[in-house]
């Protein structure tokens, strides 16, 4: 993946991951599902989490829980400290210049993007203003902008996908010309495609637009630095990066966040309230109405520490090697019967493989694979416009993470062979 080439610690050579050891940290993967060993190939939808994440959360609930922001007693201060520490950890993880002010905790990546659309979009965008998206976006980075089209008369422009599953950037300057906002994924959850984000961001900025990066897929799998990307906002989810469900992250440039009105109203996000009106709090608390996901933030801290410990560059390289191995084996085994919907070149893609085997329907495929305890996802993957572009209504998708190895890929191929023989 290109992002890592510019990374400073590329100098310290990447090391081979010890997958057998890593699997031991994940009870489901080491002990099995109802006692049967399982091949989990659906991390793009949600990853598994290591015991240390669950331990951190139960430790917090057992011994450190109080509500944040309000208590004067030591216990509440401790909870506060853990929550703010999570903010710093998440911020540093993506290279935020000012983590304490620039990280907003949300429920997930979807809420983070909606926060931008509602707080920034609803106030800054007017009839005829242009928002640019791409054809390969997840609904999370599409529907909020389509809703703004309805609410504010915003015009949507779509960067198309080429037949080689990469974005068509030939007319990039034209596409972003006059745009107010450009929203683009860092990695497609269907194709694995990793767009040249920096190039898009630079063009967008030259045109005077702000840039939103959907990091839900790439942040868990590669070294991501908001300064190197050149984005103004970055959204990602805890549950896809070994963390718990219920916590997502929005990073935004401090001056941008500071210029934005609150997203939701309630406790915690105000300085003063009178019946006549409110004085909103400083950032980032301005955007965190109500009791935040405290235990989840603590779990996310543990997840990030676990990832950092292994090293994002090692994870990235492992994903790339395993993906290349799997694509090669798929082609060797099934030849013309298999179609892989994603870029050929390793540098342009992550560890997500959408495939079609003969004309077997993805649901049938997923069901037969499940009989071999191989978990893959079949469906539209929340990317209906992309499905339309691919000329299908669903794909079967296998996705990898740091706990998968070639034996998982082999079992995938074995199970696919079984499906091929059943549907012959």
């Amino acid at each position, binding site marked *: 993946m290109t992002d890592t080439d510019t990374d400073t610690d590329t100098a310290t050579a990447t090391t081979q991951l010890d997958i057998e050891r890593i699997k031991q940290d994940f009870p489901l993967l080491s002990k099995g599902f109802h006692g*049967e060993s399982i091949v989990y190939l659906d991390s793009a939808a949600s990853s598994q989490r290591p015991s240390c994440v669950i331990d951190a959360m139960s430790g917090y609930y057992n011994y450190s829980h109080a509500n944040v922001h309000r208590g004067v007693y030591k216990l509440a201060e401790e909870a506060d400290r853990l929550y703010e520490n999570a903010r710093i950890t998440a911020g540093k993880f993506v290279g935020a210049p000012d983590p304490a002010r620039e990280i907003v905790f949300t429920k997930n990546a979807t809420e983070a993007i909606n926060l931008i659309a509602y707080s920034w979009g609803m106030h800054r965008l007017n009839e005829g203003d242009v928002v640019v998206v791409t054809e390969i976006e997840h609904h999370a980075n599409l529907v909020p902008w389509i809703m703004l089209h309805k609410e504010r008369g915003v015009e949507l422009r779509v960067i198309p996908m080429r037949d080689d599953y990469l974005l068509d950037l030939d007319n990039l300057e034209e596409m972003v010309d006059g745009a107010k906002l450009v929203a683009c994924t860092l990695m497609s959850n269907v194709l694995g495609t990793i767009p040249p984000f920096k190039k898009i961001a630079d063009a967008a900025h030259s045109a005077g637009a702000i840039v939103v990066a959907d990091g839900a897929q790439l942040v868990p799998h590669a070294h991501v630095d908001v300064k190197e990307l050149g984005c103004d906002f970055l959204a990602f989810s805890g549950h896809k990066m070994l963390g718990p469900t219920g916590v997502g992250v929005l990073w935004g440039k401090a001056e941008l966040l500071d210029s934005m009105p609150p997203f939701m109203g309630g406790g915690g996000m105000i300085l003063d309230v009178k019946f006549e009106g409110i004085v909103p709090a400083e950032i980032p608390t301005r955007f965190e109405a109500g009791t935040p996901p405290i235990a989840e933030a603590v779990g996310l801290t543990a997840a990030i520490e676990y990832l950092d410990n292994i090293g994002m560059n090692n994870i990235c390289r492992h994903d790339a090697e395993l993906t290349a191995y799997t694509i090669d084996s798929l082609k060797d085994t099934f030849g013309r019967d298999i179609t892989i919907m994603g870029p050929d070149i390793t540098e342009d893609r992550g560890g997500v493989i959408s495939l079609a085997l003969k004309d077997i*329907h*993805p*649901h*049938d495929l997923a*069901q*037969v694979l499940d*009989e*071999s*305890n191989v978990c893959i996802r*079949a*469906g*539209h993957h929340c990317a209906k416009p992309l*499905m339309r572009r691919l000329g*299908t*209504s*669903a794909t079967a998708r296998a996705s990898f993470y740091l706990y998968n190895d070639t034996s998982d890929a082999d079992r995938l191929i074995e199970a696919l062979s079984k499906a091929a023989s*059943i*549907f012959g």
Partner: protein
Amino acid sequence: MSSSGLEDLYREIILDHYRNPRNRGSMEVPPSQRVEAYNPLCGDEVVVYLLENNGVLEDVRIEGQGCSISQSSASLMSAAVKGKTVEETRKIISDFKKLMSIHESKLEDSTDDTQMDLDLDAMGELAALQGVVRFPVRIKCAILAWNALAQGLDEISDVSTDKTK
């Protein structure tokens, strides 16, 4: 690993109807009735054509595309109801829904039969779809054509009451 579930689900009959669907095609509308059912989540699509004459479904045709369960169920359905009266067809629909463990409240009010009371032998090839029940997400696939059929029958009844007015 349990392969029994799999064998149940993809029994010969289902695969046979998937590969060689019965009553495939369309009919002129009118005189026939055309009903479409679509599952936007997985893209399964079934189109049912019904030709009713004097209370009898003289012909049934199926178009559409999708997974083996949705398409074989449509094929099995067409074979089961072709030539049956509208009343008989309604009974077959209700039996099939019971097979899928879908209990409609009005059914449960009037009778207390459950899947246990179903005469599987009497259901013939349809019983092959019984295995679907153990895979709840697939029930939607299996039931798709049947919803279209039920809607078609309602439309037929509406037309005939209109005529009698």
